[in-house]
């Protein structure tokens, strides 16, 4: 009798452990199948594939649409030079679009950079950046730049199959759920028409947008003791971006 009750207890215990383990495994699988988080309200929504944005029809009708090609080259690199430490990071998962008129004038665009794609070279630090005290990726999953105006677009260089312009980009930057107006001078736009050599790497006519600028984290209410007291992370973050976009959407690239 005594032996039987022990046996029943052991069986019940193993059942409990097995059910807990299977529930956890199930939850983990559920998390794995979850797609990228949707764009916040008031911004352009993501395509089902998660590789591009659904360009609003009123903007698409204004000119040629170029889609950002993610998961390839480095698109964004940042440097934080604090007295204690210099921290660098990058991402290549920016999705978005640019609308260009027939005369090569950039007239609209929006880009979304997933906060959880920022790689500083240290997995633990990457996780910290997504936490509530930092960029709060759960609540604000994307860093967003939306073009409002492009000023002083001037031809800088022209050659066989390409044209390069310098321009000033005026737009709205949204970081940590806070939106501020941002002017980026000395940006460079290069258009390259499709050719046998470009086709090997990417389909369609290509546009590259290059810009360097800096943002103050305090302007976006990112305030952490590591920035203000410990001086391990600078308030001013220098950002270097290089986006390559194509007239062929990422879903249709080979």
């Amino acid at each position, binding site marked *: 009798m005594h032996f039987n009750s022990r046996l029943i207890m052991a069986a019940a215990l193993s059942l409990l452990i097995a059910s807990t383990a299977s529930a956890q495994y199930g939850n983990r699988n559920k998390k794995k199948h979850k797609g990228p988080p949707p764009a916040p309200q008031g911004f352009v929504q993501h395509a089902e594939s998660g590789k591009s944005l659904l360009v609003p029809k009123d903007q698409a009708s204004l000119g040629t649409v170029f889609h950002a*090609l993610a*998961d*390839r*080259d*480095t698109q964004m*690199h940042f*440097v934080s030079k604090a007295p204690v*430490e210099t921290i*660098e*990071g*990058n991402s*290549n998962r920016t999705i978005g679009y640019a609308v260009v008129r027939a005369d090569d004038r950039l007239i609209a665009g929006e880009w979304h950079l997933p906060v959880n794609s920022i*790689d*500083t*070279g*240290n*997995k*633990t*630090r990457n*996780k910290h950046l997504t936490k509530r005290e930092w960029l709060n990726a759960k609540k604000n999953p994307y860093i967003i730049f939306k073009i409002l105006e492009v000023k002083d677009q001037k031809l*800088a*260089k022209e*050659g066989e199959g*390409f044209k*390069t312009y*310098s321009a000033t980009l005026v737009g709205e930057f949204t970081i940590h759920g806070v939106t501020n107006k941002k002017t980026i001078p*000395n940006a*460079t736009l*290069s258009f*390259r028409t499709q050719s046998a*050599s*470009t086709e090997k*790497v*990417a389909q369609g006519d*290509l546009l*590259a947008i*290059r*810009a*360097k600028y800096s943002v103050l984290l305090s302007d976006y209410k990112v305030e952490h003791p590591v920035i203000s007291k410990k001086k391990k992370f600078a308030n001013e973050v220098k950002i*270097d*971006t*290089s986006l*390559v976009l194509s007239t062929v959407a990422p879903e249709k690239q080979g």
Partner: protein
Amino acid sequence: MVRIIRSVIVVCCLFISLQAFMLWTATGRKALTRFPTEELTQQADSGLSDLFSDTGLNDDLGEVQKLDNRFTFGLLPSPAANAEAVSLMTVAGPALLVALLAIQPIGWSKRKSHHKNDSE
């Protein structure tokens, strides 16, 4: 015999600490330990930005900077239960502590126990 064993312990611990220090210095004296990743290798090999090398895209701003994709042995441990927690401090720290305990006077522990017995 005890002295020889203690000397060997001290020498070994100092060697471990020295090698950890050399590794930290050789890998760039970074704050945290990190390892190369496949994603960063792919970013470097894509060739997409090379298509614009002759267009003057980078004439004013220079090439876009890239994150170093290499191993660095950090000074401090990352607060995580993974390989990034290994650092100069976690390797050299315990080694120096053992060395410090090994160089304490031989009779110290005996004297302490005698003193305890006397007081009782």
